[in-house]
């Protein structure tokens, strides 16, 4: 799965671009699937934003809009049994692992049909079946937990790999660097995926870190890293394949810095005054992962009607999830006292 411009490189620098040339590595079928998966996340998040606006979703709600190519491209590199873990901007990751839109949306509305029976909310969902280990609300905590999932893979010698996602903000936490050391020391099969969306809440990455190339943050421990155009699903997949293969071969951890962008605020209550409207519009118009995929598919000769069918399917799934999330009952009051401790055998 190595292709043209990326072949043999372990490191690339410079601004992310969205050159269609990079996307030729996918088959049309794969690209269509990626388009569908990215669109599902986009439409799901737009709906979540609406439901939040209607007061049906409470608390914090961090939307993934703009970053869809990262999780969709990376998920294409995984096999059954592999794990995924991330922080609180997690709806996209869950949908990418194949968790059901209904269960995710119903968790957002705090209903019993949600993945955590309504007890976790937007930031705390899990599915052992799909290999999704959360959904963690403490910035950076998921990185050492992810190293632990990889530790268990090594302990069991089962050849599985853990994708550990975190943002450019979390990449400054001390435990991230502790995890780099542990992962390199024990040769853990973990891909550290930094989703650099340029802003940790309202602080731009260059105001938060003296490290200008986060893909090289693991270099003191000899961890190879790449900067990747995270707006290009094929580029993400190509880099992901290299990283996952490295881990599966028992060669230890790998870092991928995804250059990506979130269109919405950090959370719903973010007025986003730290960046210009033009900056956001430029990313949307010139680098949008879904539009890029759409263009490539049309240029490759896919009939527009087929894309319309995908659009309609996705809209139906999202509408159904929103309906479910509003009709699923609130958790029974008895749930207040369950799931605190497990009974010892």
């Amino acid at each position, binding site marked *: 799965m190595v292709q043209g411009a990326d072949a043999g490189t372990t490191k690339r620098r410079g601004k992310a671009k969205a050159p269609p040339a990079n996307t030729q590595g996918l088959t049309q079928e794969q690209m269509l699937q990626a388009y569908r998966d990215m669109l599902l996340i986009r439409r799901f998040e*737009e709906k979540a934003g609406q439901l939040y*606006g*209607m007061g049906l979703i409470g608390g914090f709600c961090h939307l993934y809009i703009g970053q869809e190519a990262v999780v969709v491209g990376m998920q294409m590199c995984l096999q059954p049994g592999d*794990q995924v873990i991330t922080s609180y901007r997690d709806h996209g990751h869950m949908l990418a692992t194949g*968790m059901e839109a209904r*269960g995710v949306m*119903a968790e957002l509305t705090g209903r*019993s*049909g*949600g*993945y*955590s*029976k309504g*007890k*976790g909310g937007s930031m705390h969902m*899990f*599915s*052992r*079946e799909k290999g999704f*280990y*959360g959904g963690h609300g*403490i910035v950076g*905590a998921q*990185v*050492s*937990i992810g*190293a*632990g999932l*990889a*530790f*268990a893979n090594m*302990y069991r010698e089962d050849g599985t790999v853990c994708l550990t996602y975190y943002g450019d903000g979390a990449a400054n936490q001390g*435990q991230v660097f502790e*995890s780099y*050391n*542990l992962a390199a*020391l024990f040769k853990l099969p973990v891909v550290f995926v930094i989703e650099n969306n340029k802003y940790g809440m309202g602080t731009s990455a260059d105001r938060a870190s003296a490290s200008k190339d986060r893909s090289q943050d693991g270099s003191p421990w000899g961890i190879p890293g790449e900067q990747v155009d995270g707006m290009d699903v094929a580029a993400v997949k190509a880099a992901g394949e290299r990283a996952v293969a490295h881990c599966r071969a028992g060669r230890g951890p790998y870092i991928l810095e995804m250059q990506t962008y979130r*269109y919405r605020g950090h959370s719903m*209550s973010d*007025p*986003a*005054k730290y960046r210009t409207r033009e900056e956001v519009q430029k990313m*949307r118009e010139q680098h949008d992962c879904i539009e890029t995929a759409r263009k490539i598919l049309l240029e490759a000769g896919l009939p527009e009607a087929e894309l319309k069918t995908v659009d309609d399917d996705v*809209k139906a799934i999202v509408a159904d999830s*929103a309906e*479910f999330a*509003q*009709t*699923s*009952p609130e958790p029974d009051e008895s749930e*207040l*006292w*369950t*799931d*605190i*401790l*497990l*009974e*010892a*055998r």
Partner: protein
Amino acid sequence: MGATILMPALSPTMTEGKLARWLKKEGDAVKAGDVLAEIETDKATMEVEAVDEGTLTKILVPEGTEAVAVNSAIAELDGGEGGAAAKPAEKPAAEEVPEAKAETPGAAAPVGAATHAAPKGPASEPEKDWGPTKSITVREALRDAMAAEMRRDDKVFLMGEEVAQYQGAYKISQGLLDEFGAKRVIDTPITEHGFTGMAVGAAMSGLRPIVEFMTFNFSMQAIDHIINSAAKTLYMSGGQLGCPIVFRGPNGAAARVAAQHSQCYASWYAHVPGLKVVAPWSAADAKGLLRAAIRDPNPVVFLENEILYGQSFECPTDEDFILPIGKAKIERQGKDVTIVAFSIEVGVALKAAEQLAEEGIDAEVINLRSIRPLDIDTIVASVKKTNRLVTVEEGWAFSGIGGEVAMQVIEHAFDHLDAPPARVAGLDVPMPYAANLEKLALPTVEHVVQAAKSVTYKK
């Protein structure tokens, strides 16, 4: 198909806002992502983006309108998909959960913790007789417990600083590397935050880590993972993701190591639902409770004491010996006053009871063994007999375990008390280094004797 655009809530607390400005006018074509309007809240000015495309057919709320309620219609859009018009359901209907919940490792049905439940009645049945005993040190008991459980379950492993090649900073893991190898007895770098998080992840994946802290003082570097990651995830996952892990190591004061190395963390960890907190005193406690902690499907904080490591106690030799977590032990029967203690203070309390006996006061001494869950039944049954309570702990009294025990006794047996409960605790100062000052800061036999006399109104 038309869609109604509603006044959005932009924060968890917003109920209304000012519609400051329309950026689109009636008849304008709208694309997803276009800014439609600006809304002012008490905190900020926010932009309302279009979610669907279409034509803005009608503006219902003119710009400049104050106090527009969240969810009221502000405009109409033609050609959209109707998403914004979706209405909250009036009556929820029953629906199935999205997927069958996967089995949590080593787990049975989830149970709730009800710390406020009334005691279930008289003290529990007497402890099982495990037959012949042998004198061993607490250190050996802990090592034997880990070795026995590691033989029993290959998912159990030990990690921490100096646990393998150095054989343990306090020699607790002596011989384990030889028997189980480097895969299961793992030296970590000095990186508590990182390796604790890693162990928690391994536990979530179904392994059963034992994390040794060289002392519990260093667990402060990792307390986020113990509380936010280990203790809360089962609840936040609706019961899907358990965390079977033991955090163990010496807790409290050793001798002459000053404030940063001499603190009792019992009340810190006991505060948290989702954790179990165990504090053994004798070798039998250490062995039986550590085996139970390793088998427990929940995160267990296991508080040892460095000074006790070298002390010898009789311990059952039965290979299956194990003690239940959550049961206190009456170490000495008495009728005049109940003394509740844990860890090293159990020894102090027993010595005090001997002195009290010489002065005609018959003290009952309860070894808590488990701080959370707290065996309040045994304590209350004892107080109903003696009508007086003294608590003893090495940590500070403020928000301490003694305060909790006393309060629960007041809740459950107020009418049985003939005197206000008394607390014996470490003094409310950081631990001093100087030998004389350190001695003054810690509870002594004499303090316990005095407290018992005061609650029995004897001089």
